[in-house]
């Protein structure tokens, strides 16, 4: 995957598969300390220690009880090669927190990619989940909670053409008004 937002989408898709009801996404660009941070926090079914190990490095264990992908190991390797770090905290029955950080200016750091489309995809594609999204750039912040919108829209699907336009414009403007240049 060539964009950080595609990894974000991948991790969020894992949260959806884990039957989460609430998923919180955070993206922080700190241009002063030169850091780029992303996290996904869910209240899904969580993982035990063995499963977390396996997700991080699918080749360390011989157990083949469940299929795991390569999205997470690749993201971890990418962060670590950019003066960054990667962490998963998970507890069965409670949920999972995935955090990753990069040196923002690092030459090998993947571009963030299309953040508005990524958030829009999550919200419209999985309306059963309550999504919250926080995007912070230094002192400025855009916060989005889809709950009040869903309440207002009761009876109208998020994939209604007028709703798509509204969500796209709202999220795009919110992000672009504070987004620094890559």
């Amino acid at each position: 995957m060539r964009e950080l937002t595609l990894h974000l989408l991948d991790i969020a898709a894992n949260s959806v598969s884990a039957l989460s009801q609430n998923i919180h996404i955070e993206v922080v660009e700190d241009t002063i300390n030169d850091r780029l941070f992303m996290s996904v926090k869910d209240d899904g079914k969580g993982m035990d220690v063995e499963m977390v190990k396996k997700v991080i490095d699918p080749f360390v264990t011989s157990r083949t009880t469940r299929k795991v992908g390569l999205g997470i190991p690749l993201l971890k390797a990418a962060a670590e090669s950019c003066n960054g770090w990667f962490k998963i905290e998970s507890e069965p029955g409670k949920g999972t927190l995935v955090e990753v950080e990069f040196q923002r200016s690092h030459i090998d750091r993947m571009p963030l990619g299309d953040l508005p489309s990524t958030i829009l995809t999550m919200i419209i594609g999985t309306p059963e989940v309550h999504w919250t999204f926080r995007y912070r750039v230094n002192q400025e912040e855009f916060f989005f909670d889809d709950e009040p919108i869903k309440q207002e829209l009761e009876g109208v699907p998020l994939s209604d053409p007028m709703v798509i336009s509204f969500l796209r414009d709202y999220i795009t403007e919110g992000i672009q008004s504070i987004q620094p240049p890559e």
Partner: protein
Amino acid sequence: MEKIKSLEDLKKLRAEALEKRTAKVISGQKEVIVGMGTVGIAAGARETLKAILDYIESEGLTDIVVRQTGNIGLDSFEPIVQVVIGDQAKVTYGRVTPDAARKIMKEHVVGGNVVKEYHIEGK
């Protein structure tokens, strides 16, 4: 856009959307499902989903539900899109680029004809 203002706008939008929908509800639900597992995302599923949303928006199609789902289990055919119209059987499409997605929307979801070019038989 101010947040309060946008919620006000949303109320108007809802009234308008519901008005347009009532006439169409009888024609049967149309569902478009995009596979969003790791392989699907890496193969371009986000752009495929975006093309579908753009098409719905530009054509003003009000009776379509778009959903994403996890791995469908056809890795080599990703991105995968499935179309369900009313109580008809689910139709699965493979290697759905944004162009292919627009064609499927136009010919199948709107037109009612399966697009053979991308159709995965027996799925």
